[in-house]
């Protein structure tokens, strides 16, 4: 295993119980402490790949290796699907308790990181969608996993919440593998992007390169990031990395 990779996926195949193939030989590496976005159309195999990384499924063939064999934290696309406890505090305590960690400390830190400490006594299922998303992430972080696998964590969030999430993921100091449909989110916050098409990883690389490849994006059913469109439409010399940079580029013209 590459010493700088936290996750190594090689030739992974997986089919549903009825025989329908989902992953058809997927291979990719996720670098240590990177925020790595997994992109592709609905049905391309993103969720299945995340579940394999999280150890919730076993591949039919191929290997998924996690450095150090640490447990992987997993947050499902629909947070409600993962909740089982009566209070937020009990929900968030589950993972650290299972790992034999200092439960109180890890729960407090995770609740504070996601800014949901005031919800500790609420029932998870009574929370709003955005609050449920935050609690779901807190319950993953509380277990202090070196690798977290997040299924569409930015889905349904409005712009400020999405920005907070992106900044949080970048500041986690852990390896983050997250699926997303939002190319703008991946472009701005990911260190690397992998593109899945029909169960195969067809490209892994720097977001600025991968998400500027219009043919690839069209084939994979991914929306072109707004900044990439902007650079093309205005014939900018290069794709700006942020809105601020775009303003500078436009002002220079």
């Amino acid at each position, binding site marked *: 295993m590459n010493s700088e990779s936290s996750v190594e996926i090689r030739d992974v195949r997986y089919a549903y119980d009825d025989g329908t193939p989902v992953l058809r030989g997927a291979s990719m590496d996720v670098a240590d402490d990177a925020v790595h976005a997994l992109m*592709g*159309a*609905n*049905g391309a195999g993103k969720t299945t790949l995340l579940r394999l990384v999280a150890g919730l499924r076993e591949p039919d063939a191929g290997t998924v290796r996690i450095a150090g064999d640490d447990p992987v934290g997993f947050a499902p*696309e629909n947070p409600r699907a993962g909740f089982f406890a009566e209070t937020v505090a009990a929900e968030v305590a589950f993972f650290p308790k299972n790992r034999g960690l200092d439960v109180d400390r890890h729960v407090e830190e995770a609740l504070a990181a996601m800014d949901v400490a005031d919800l500790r006594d609420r029932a998870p299922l009574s929370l*709003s*969608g*955005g609050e449920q998303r935050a609690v779901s992430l807190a319950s993953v972080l509380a277990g202090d996993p070196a690798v977290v696998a997040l299924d*569409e964590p930015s*889905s*349904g*969030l*409005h*712009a*400020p*919440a*999405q920005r907070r999430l992106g900044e949080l993921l970048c500041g986690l100091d852990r390896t983050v593998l997250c699926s997303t*449909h939002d190319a*703008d989110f991946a472009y701005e916050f990911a260190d690397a992007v992998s593109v899945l098409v029909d169960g195969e990883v067809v490209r892994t690389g720097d977001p600025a390169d991968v998400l500027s490849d219009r043919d690839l*994006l069209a084939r994979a*059913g*991914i*929306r072109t990031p*707004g*900044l990439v*469109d*902007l650079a093309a*439409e*205005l014939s900018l010399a290069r794709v700006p990395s942020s*809105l*601020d940079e*775009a*303003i500078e580029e*436009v*002002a220079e013209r």
Partner: protein
Amino acid sequence: MTLVDVESLSVRTADGSRLLDEVSLSVAAGETLLLCGAPGAGKTLLAKAIEGVLRRRDDLTVDGDVRRVGDVALVFQHPEVQLVRQTVEHDAAFGLENRGVPVAEIRTRIDRYARLLGVEPLLDRDVHDLSRGETTLAALLGVLVTEPDVVVLDEPLTALDHRNAELVLDAIDRLRSHGTAVVVAEHDLRDLLSRADRVVVLDDGRVRETGDPRHLAATLRAVGAKLPVATELALERDVRGGDVPLTTDELRE
């Protein structure tokens, strides 16, 4: 001509929390109206109030008035819940059969509106085998055959990949060309803002502002809506009012 007139609508929960507070708005024939606001601002509730389904909720206290001149139909945020039959065609017939519409007329309407939406290839498909975008189209067909004057779509783009989002956006364009009034509750306006005639900005259950999309762009950003990158860039450069571009083409000009 005004098709829906909402006047001083307030919605409270049993414990007295105000979910909507003195909301007034109207929907005119043929217009495309966006309901925007952060999660929890009241978009879904207002969409349901416009359609009328809210009156049937006995856990909520509803004050104020919603007058409808025409028929209003709603496509839910999770449209799979409104598909009740095996195939798309049989499902589309369900509402009409319940209203005692003659079989020949049902056939004619399904053909007409399947053609309008461009979903003829879906008619024989099992509703459980549809992609998310196709599910929204199937639900939309099911309400269109009843020939409503207003179609309300609740967060139709959430969780859709680019391909499926394009399907739904194309359907919205077809409805607009057909002259149907369309109300869309959504916070991701990257592909919707340029399609809107008017925007209602909701903030914490109240109408903060109503107006045309260019003049409300700054307000939309303030409540966390995702805007087209061209609009964001212009706002950052302090462009305001009628000069705010809604597309990159407009920015270039």
